[in-house]
């Protein structure tokens, strides 16, 4: 019975990349909601929620950046190993 280790590296790399992209998409949706909520709050006169919203948004952006670095690394590793064959 084939295991995940038996799959070619190209497919394993793609699975990892798609997983990272899914996480980025989820984080992006949360960020969009956060921005609209912060704007709505700001326009209604509540100015205390801007700082926590900016901090959380920054943290999520950094996570997205880290995931992009991961995608890029997996991409270069898998394609490098393919080309080295």
């Amino acid at each position, binding site marked *: 019975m084939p295991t995940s280790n038996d799959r070619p590296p190209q497919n394993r790399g793609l699975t990892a990349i798609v997983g990272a992209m899914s996480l980025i998409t989820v984080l992006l949706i949360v960020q969009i909601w956060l921005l609209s909520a912060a704007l709505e709050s700001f326009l209604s006169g509540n100015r205390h929620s801007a700082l926590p919203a900016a901090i959380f948004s920054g943290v999520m952006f950094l996570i997205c950046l880290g995931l992009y670095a991961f995608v890029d690394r997996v991409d*270069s590793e898998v394609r490098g190993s393919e080309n080295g064959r």
Partner: protein
Amino acid sequence: MNWLRRGSSGGTPSEPLWKEEFSVRTADERYVTRRQLTKFLVLTSLGMFVGNIWILIRSLFYKVPVYPQQPVAQLGEIPVGGVKLFSYPTKDDHCIMIRTGKDEYVSYSQKCTHLSCAVYYSQAENRLECPCHKGFFSIKDGAVLQGPPSRPLPRIVLEARGEQLVAIEVKG
């Protein structure tokens, strides 16, 4: 940093970017499109973050406005259930004043909080109505009763001084 390096995949590190992005191998195309989409998503994430920073800066540098004290009507000038339109605090900020009782007056900004259409007073329903998208506001506090607006109408604080009604502040 590896992810900023040009020519990071396969071949020699000095390989130009276009060779990497337009690979002759069909299998590589899947990687290129996914990586480009990921880059686009991360840039969008950066845009959201910048938007939040902009709101934060606006919040930090927000100045509490100083409102003028402006006579807007004479006591008893309008009948009970009657309406008077005026501008406050600037001539471009249109407001609506309603006499709800013998000695009771309420006043709100006439600009709907949805898409800025002018609201009017419906005496039959005893509420403020926006004709554009059927947004209804309470006459008591300007709260949203129905429709697309998500915020209440800004209230104009009135003060009786002698025979005059004076607008002193905008709340909300």
